[in-house]
């Protein structure tokens, strides 16, 4: 079976097990596997605020130098990990002198020889959406899902090159193939507030709320994300929002891999979708399909 | 190698970029070793590999060819032609056993006085540590 070297990242083994599980299950259903890399460690995302620019890169460089022993691509799910690792490869290739310093520090050599892929890229560029569409067993007919990209998947565009930073379409294209009716809404590439939700929620919360609103106003009944932190910020904000605006309408948030899994006909439990979420999805969707 | 050895380096400088760059180094009073003497040519493309060989055969310890950065050539792309000849010459000099540090091709713009000084410094040191080339005697001795 075709297999892709895979970097899980901390959150996917703790808070976002469902993301990890649904992705692996869907992958298998599509005839390939996500093979955990040896000796992975934290991508370093949470250190991105320390002021030593090189130290930040030490971690990710270790990961990549190890990955390159196992293959020439490394697939990620979490938008944060993807951003950190992909940018690390970029800098490794474009700033040789500082890379030298890092390699010396790490005592492991990495010079950009690994292509970092996001699971979406694997589906779009390697497997191909046509193949995905063929594999769909239970199309999610008419599901009005809003794709939420946030920043990390797309920016900085020069380095990430996943999709158009302002008008991305990769998730929408995928959802169309799954039978959904993707909803375009302005805020889908806006920032969710990221780590501000830890340090100063009062700043991040409104950002997240705007996104929820924007999605809802444009007719989305469900949000699909590719980042645990985004998911957390959006979900937590909703409660705040509900409290402050008295708006009870709940906008469920799932990982795009979970929708993929459903469409591929996998068992919700496999995708770690609880009954509550499933009901939301059913409600959101035109009745009588699932 | 004898540390008191003073290498003789011949510099072929293109008139529009590198020679002007060398002049700029002077105007800015940047210091560099006096081992290099420059010959002003219109374009680095004027430099025929045989001239470089002859320079070494006559007793030069090193040869520097300097021209405009690619794309900046005053004669559209003379420097690219230099690069073509240099690449093949370098390959042959490897065979002759002439160290690459002895024969260098550098792009130095009219604004890069500091770079010229830098190149001359590093090249002088490298050639000094390689020691005299002394080609004439070398040929005679191994007779």
């Amino acid at each position, binding site marked *: 079976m075709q297999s892709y070297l895979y970097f899980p990242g901390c959150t996917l083994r703790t808070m976002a097990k469902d993301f990890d599980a649904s992705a692996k299950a869907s992958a298998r259903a599509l005839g390939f596997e996500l093979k955990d890399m040896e000796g992975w460690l934290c991508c370093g995302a949470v250190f991105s605020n320390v002021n030593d620019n090189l130290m930040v890169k030490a971690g990710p460089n270790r990961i990549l130098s190890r990955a390159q022993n196992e293959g020439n691509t490394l697939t990620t799910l979490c938008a944060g990990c993807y951003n950190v690792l992909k940018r690390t490869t970029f800098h490794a290739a474009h700033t040789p002198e500082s890379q030298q310093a890092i390699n010396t520090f790490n005592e492991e050599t990495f010079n950009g020889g690994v292509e970092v892929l996001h699971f979406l890229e694997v589906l779009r560029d390697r497997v191909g959406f046509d193949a995905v569409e063929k594999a769909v067993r239970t199309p999610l007919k008419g599901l009005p899902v809003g794709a939420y990209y946030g920043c990390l998947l797309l920016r900085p*565009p020069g380095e990430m090159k996943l999709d158009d930073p302002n008008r991305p379409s990769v998730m929408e294209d995928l959802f169309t193939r799954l039978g959904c009716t993707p909803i375009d809404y*302005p805020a889908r590439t806006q920032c969710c507030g990221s780590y501000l939700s830890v340090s100063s929620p009062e700043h991040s919360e409104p950002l997240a709320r705007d996104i929820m609103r924007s999605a809802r106003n444009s007719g989305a009944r469900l949000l699909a994300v590719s980042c645990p932190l985004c998911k957390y910020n959006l979900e937590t904000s909703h409660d705040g929002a509900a409290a402050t605006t008295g708006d009870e309408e709940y906008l469920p948030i799932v990982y795009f891999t979970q929708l993929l899994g459903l469409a591929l006909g996998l068992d919700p439990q496999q995708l770690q979708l609880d009954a509550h979420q499933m009901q939301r999805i059913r409600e959101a969707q035109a009745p009588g399909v699932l | 190698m004898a540390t008191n050895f003073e290498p003789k380096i011949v510099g072929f400088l293109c008139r529009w970029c590198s020679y002007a760059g060398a002049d700029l180094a002077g105007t800015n009073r940047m210091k560099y070793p006096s081992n290099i*003497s420059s010959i002003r*040519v219109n374009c680095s493309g*004027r430099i025929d590999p045989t001239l470089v060989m002859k320079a070494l055969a006559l007793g030069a310890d090193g040869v520097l060819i300097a021209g405009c950065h690619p794309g900046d050539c005053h*004669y559209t792309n003379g420097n690219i032609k230099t690069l073509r000849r240099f690449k093949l010459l370098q390959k042959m000099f490897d065979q002759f056993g002439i160290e690459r540090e002895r024969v260098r091709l550098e792009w130095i713009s009219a604004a890069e006085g500091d770079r010229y000084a830098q190149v001359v410094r590093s090249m002088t040191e490298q050639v000094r540590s390689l020691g005299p080339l002394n080609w004439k005697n070398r040929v005679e001795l191994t007779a």
Partner: protein
Amino acid sequence: MLTRCKGFAKHKRQECCEMSTTPTKRVGVFVCHCGLNIAGTVNVNEVVERAKKQKGVVFAVDHKYLCSEPGQALVKDSIKQQHLDAVVIAACSPAMHETTFKNVVHSAGLNRYNCEIANIREQGSWVHDDHEKATAKSHIAVRQAIEKVKLNEALQPITVPVTRRVLVIGGGIAGIRAALDVANAGYEVYLVEKSGTIGGRMAQLSETFPTLDCSTCILGPLMVEAYRHPNIKLFRLSKVEEVKGYIGNFKVTVRQEPPYVDVAKCNACGECAKVCPAEVPNEFDMGLTWRKAIYTPFAQAVPPAYVLDSKNCLGLLPQACGECKKACDKFGTSCINLDAWPQVHEFEVGAIIAATGYELYDATKLTEYGYGTHPDIMTSLEFERMLSASGPTSGEIRCPSDGHTPKEIVFIQCAGQREPETGLPYCSKICCMYTARHAMMFHHKVPDGQAYVFYMDIRAGGKGYEEFVKRCQEEKGLLYLRGRVAKVFEENGKLTVKGVDTLSGKTVEINADIVVLAVGMIPSSGSHELASKLKASLDVYGFFAEAHPKLRPLESPTAGIYIAGAGHAPKDIPDTVAQASGAASKALDLLSSPTLEREPTVAKVTGELCSGCGICIPICPYTALGLSPTTKVAEVSAALCEGCGTCIASCPSGALSLRNLTDEQILAMVEAIVAS
């Protein structure tokens, strides 16, 4: 090793052939102190004394300031008194005073090429501290110069004839101005324009900053003058096909599409357009309106006649429709000939002025601003058309979407500009000004409206510019916000502009009826192809490169090619016109004499050595080399040769050489270096 003539040969032999016969010149060496600049580090006397010992040197002397009047006199007099044939000046870089001293040598009756400079300042005294070493190196420099000058040949400048005519490419304001200046000076001008009329971008503008006078009103008369001028031959619908030759002697081929309408007969009655079934977006209105396939570009177009664009006509070969012709024959002056063919014109000119102008950066690339997703998001030039009395709304400001009068309008400056990563890295220079004007015009036309201008900083360098912008900023109902727009999007039917006001530090969201993007200027699409035909270089952005950014901004590095207008770099009208007149006067300078002189230090072929292998021919960037059809060996066109010498390096038989920089001379200099 073949020069010795011993051996036991019995027959009488003529002297050795391979002995290189060094001309015995009486060389004089002059060493300059340059105050202490040289003498402070270099032992001038030693340099003089050692120079005296060199073969061929009959005289050597030093002087405090050789470039001074007495210094030059010393050189001149010594040449006479000492009967010198050649002179070496050991002083500053040849870049400084080579010409000065060559003139001195010349005035003393010697050929100017019997003078060589030894650079003992910029590459001697100034870069070395150690006096001994600096002196030794200066001596080497002097020896090099001596060896070279001994082998220099006396040369006369090459004179080539000048065809006293000018080709102007591009019929915008730059082209028109340049053409008129040359024509008024009494020389013929060929003015080549690709579209159906001259006028260019300026004709599309409604007003001009900072004076707010009507653009076409000031341009129109010039267009007519250029069209009527006896010395100007206008080729509209034309394209430069080929340019051969060199400065003073260009051979130009121009291909002209037929207008299919007889200009002399057409009275612009418009019957033809009425019946024409083919409708296409009107480029003059930036596609905001439609035009027929047979049309007049705009009211003031010259010549004032209809023109048929064959690309959009339903078909000429075979004739598919022909309605226009029928109508014209019936109601009009029967001036339409659908069987016309393109014409090819060939002519000779001495100088070429490239005034190819600009186009707008493709706004659809700026996805964050949503251009193309909503009709009310428009470019500045589209808005310009809307402001124009001759525009789609006859000057009224209406939302393209539904035609209602906008109340809130947002102008975004630097749209996709000064953005190395996603757009243009450079500033287009004019946007601050026209945006201010746009905002002001909006406010005049919609007094109760509100305009917002997002800007990074205001660049209003120019006569009366700053004052103009200030005036706009002070208008009420006009708000300048310092910051960039993050996103323009449509939410529940309303355009929303989301940006930041960096002065208040707050993000702002504005619901706008119209969003105007000040997109940047890029070189017009044809300029790349044209540049390669002209062998003129372009800069990294595709604008025409100048010979020197400060000192030769009107000339291309390629001799005989001059540049004017926005094809050279983003410019406003005054700068464009100034550069156009400048380029014209440069061309006139060239035309002012029937011949021109060129450096004679060019390549030459020794015919009997050349085997015509042809290696050198593609090497020459100026097509100065060719194989003679008669002798089958290479020959150099001295007029075309720029003297770079790259062909010499490529010649396998040593048949090519560069005058006054021969292999012998270079090797003599090398020996001077290594032998000492």
